[in-house]
């Protein structure tokens, strides 16, 4: 494992290009494009205001930089550094911005979710979509980029509109039986759309591509409902994480629950491996101590850690959520399937230090990783079943079925990793902290 040096970053905006050649990062109002292997600066663009969001176009030729305060989106071209494009929403304001799958249209959501403006980079046409729903995941594109589902709300009722991305034709428009739609997500095969309701109602609806309701699933009434969902890469399973600390898996044939995964605080089954991160006392080699001591100060004070296998029964650290507060920190907040469809990683917000890894082939709990600090984010390697997670300290943790390892990032000073993202080839990993980022190169194991 090699680590690059630290580079400046702001806003946790560091993204690999879809073709895997470049890495875009932004520092305040500058957009820096680097080569992935050498991390040399290929391009440097300056925007008009502090950048709040960047996104690569699907063909990796353009990068959009959105500045919500000013209501401006600037698009930069990699091929032609002189090319510029500025989209100003003016008094309409800007709340969100994203690319269309063909990489030539930009969808801007104006303030108060008044409308979505579709700006085209090819033609001079502008389209408006009215009444978009003000929710977390209101726009969803299919994986092949052909269709877009948009959540709308008119007259206090929720609707879904399906658009064809090539010419923005409205394909289907239907209402949903939800109280207050919270999110929509396409299945990876692009044929089923999952629509789920607000957390006050546990309800998830499955619609087919042509707008027919395939199935409804309700687990229980009254208590807080769905917190997060994830489709398996083969579209066979839909995992629903809810506030009752359980994950329910639906199958794509009957859309009925096939199993429930519980997240108790005490693990008693001896077949489950529990890796616990423990601190290793740092070993200081006195010969290497030299002036100035600042160079080694961080490594002196940062403690190494390693994984120990805990003996079952293990009781995990539980955090009681504050009562009388909305959006309590309980329930399954993070869900992710591994790319080979074999594992599911979940995080129960009650037990914020643990990542639970479930074996989907056997539908059983496989491994629990217990960390010293709260999990900030985790992501699966896009090529193999390898999970990288970070807990807000200077270490990155990797788990694979062969074992797990904790790696201290050898950086001077404080480097608290808050987020990470994998390169599309699975060979490198970008570790992002509040002010910096570094790239970690993983050695490919010889098969």
């Amino acid at each position, binding site marked *: 494992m090699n680590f690059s040096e630290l580079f400046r970053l702001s806003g946790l905006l560091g993204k690999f290009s879809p073709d895997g050649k470049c890495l875009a990062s932004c520092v305040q109002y500058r957009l820096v494009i680097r080569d992935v292997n050498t991390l040399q600066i290929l391009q440097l663009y300056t925007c008009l205001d502090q950048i709040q969001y960047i996104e690569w176009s699907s063909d990796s030729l353009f990068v959009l930089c959105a500045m919500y305060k000013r209501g401006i989106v600037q698009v930069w071209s990699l091929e032609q550094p002189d090319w510029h494009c500025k989209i100003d929403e003016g008094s309409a304001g800007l709340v969100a911005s994203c690319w269309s799958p063909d990489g030539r249209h930009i969808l801007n959501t104006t303030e108060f979710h008044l409308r979505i403006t579709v*700006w085209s980079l*090819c033609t001079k046409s502008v389209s408006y979509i009215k009444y978009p729903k003000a929710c977390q995941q209101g726009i969803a594109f299919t994986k092949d980029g052909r269709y877009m589902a948009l959540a709308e709300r008119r007259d206090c009722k929720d609707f879904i509109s399906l658009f064809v991305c090539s010419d923005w034709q409205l394909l289907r428009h239907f209402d949903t039986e939800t109280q207050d739609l919270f999110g929509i997500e396409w299945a990876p095969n692009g044929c089923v759309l999952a629509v789920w309701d607000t957390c006050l109602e546990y309800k998830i609806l499955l619609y087919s591509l042509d707008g027919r309701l395939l199935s409804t699933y309700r687990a229980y009434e009254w208590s807080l409902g769905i917190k997060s969902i994830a489709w398996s890469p083969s579209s066979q399973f839909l995992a629903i994480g809810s506030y009752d600390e359980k994950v329910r898996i639906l199958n794509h044939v009957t859309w009925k629950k096939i199993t429930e995964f519980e997240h108790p605080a005490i693990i008693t089954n001896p077949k489950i491996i529990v890796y616990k991160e423990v601190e290793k006392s740092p070993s200081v080699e006195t010969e290497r101590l030299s002036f100035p001591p600042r160079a080694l100060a961080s490594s002196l004070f940062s403690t190494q850690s390693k994984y120990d296998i805990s003996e079952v029964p293990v009781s995990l650290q539980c955090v009681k959520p504050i009562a009388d507060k909305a959006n309590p920190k309980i329930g399954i907040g993070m869900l992710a399937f591994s790319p080979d469809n074999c594992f599911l990683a979940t995080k129960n917000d009650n037990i914020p230090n643990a990542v639970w890894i479930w074996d989907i082939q056997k539908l059983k709990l496989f491994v629990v990783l217990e960390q010293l600090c709260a999990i900030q984010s985790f992501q699966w390697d896009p090529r193999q079943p390898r999970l990288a997670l970070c807990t807000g300290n200077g270490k990155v943790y990797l788990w694979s079925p062969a074992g797990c390892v904790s790696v201290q990032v050898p950086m001077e000073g404080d480097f608290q990793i808050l987020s990470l993202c994998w390169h599309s080839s699975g060979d490198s990993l970008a570790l992002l902290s509040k002010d910096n980022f570094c790239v970690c190169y993983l050695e490919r194991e010889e098969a």
Partner: protein
Amino acid sequence: MGDWKTITVPALSSDSKNIFQYTSEKKMSPPSLNTQVLRLPLPSSKSMHTFFSAFCTEENIEQSISYLNRELTTLGFPSIYAESKGKELNLVSVINCMNELLVLQHKNLRAQEEVEMQHLKLGSDMDHLQNCYAKLKEQLELSKREIVGLQERDRQLQSKNRNLHQLLKNEKDEVQKLQNIISSRATQYNHDMKRKEREYNKLKERLHQLVMNKKDKKIAMDVLNYVGRADGKRGAWRTDKTEARNEEEMYKALLNDYEQRQKQLLMENAELKKVLQQMKKEIISLLPPQKQKPKERSEDGPVLSDLEEDIGELNKENMWELSCETVREQLTNSIRKQWRMLKNHVEKLDNQVSRVHSGGLNGKDVISREDHELETEKLEVEIQQCKEMIKTQQQLLQQQLMSPCDDDTTLLLQDCYLLEERERLQEEWRLFREQKKNFEKERRSFTEAAIRLGLERKAFEEDRGAWLKQQFLSMTTDYKHSENVTTPNSDQGNGLVNSTSQQRKPHCMLSVPVPAEPCQTSQCIPQN
């Protein structure tokens, strides 16, 4: 007691007290009844006297006798008068009467005794019964009190129960109320939300109008030049055709997905059916031929054979492509049946095995598991060893084959080795031959020496003999000069002696060089 009273004369009522006294005395001391009776006259002899004198005095003897007679006759005794009239007493009858009266008295006394015994018994029984009665009354009292207590408790518990039920009902009502409250609040909130949302929508509309109306020059896109489409094609107008095409494409995508899924399911189905078929065949092969139960067979037989026939036919026709209900059902039913039969068979075998174990018989055909395992282990070890040997041999062979890197050098090397060896061999042969020669020579010389030694010994012996003979003869000739008969002998002897002497000389001559010769010969050998 009462009898006494009846017997007592009514006229003697004044003495009734005394009689009562007596009776009471009798009561007090029942065992001493007789004595009491006997004593009766004694303690109150005076009273008796008065009693007796009271009845009959000297004035009223006849009256008393006539009275007595009346009484006796009324009692059934014969009259005490001698004649029916007259005043003379019939002494016999009087005595008889007295005897009768005494007998009667005794009888009465016994009866009295008995009665008194009975009376006592009854009294004790009565006491006992009274005690029992008292105890039972106490027990009854106690039980009554207990019952009352229990009843009281029961009442309390029931009231508690009722209270709890009431509480439960209250709680349930409360829960229901709360749920109603929740739902009503929820509807209220929804309604409020909807109201707010409508207001919000109105605001949005207003804002939208304002934004649109303003025609903000600022809301614009400023781009250097328009970029070509990602796929390089030109943009197209949106027409009905394109709309229809989009619909078509959408349906195509959906259908593709369904077809794929169906294909997968069909494949899975086919696999499973194949597996089931295989299982069925294997189960049938595992089962023993059922000759023992022809009845069952005959029952299942035609059905099975029919099924098998059908399935056989269908197999031929690519059964797995047909997924109709009947075929599926038949397959599953037949497998279930076979499975049941297999299970029965296995159970039978288990029973047999358990019986065999309990009987202590070891089947000759059956090798015990441990032996079997040992054998397999041994065989494995042997196989391992053989493999290793083969490997080493192969390696050696390889080495031998592999060591020559160059043909010429190898040949040369080989030649060198061969020459060296040949020379060595030749040397050795030479040595060997030399040694052989030497040994032959030695042997010859030794044999010659041996022969000579033998000859010498013979000559020596002859010499010795001759010398002894000469000595003897000399000894004898000293004595017998005249004996010339022996001269020829002596001549012979002389001759012999001469010869012997002659021989001796050469012997001596010979004998000298004889020891020298072997030395010489031994010296000669190394020279050769």
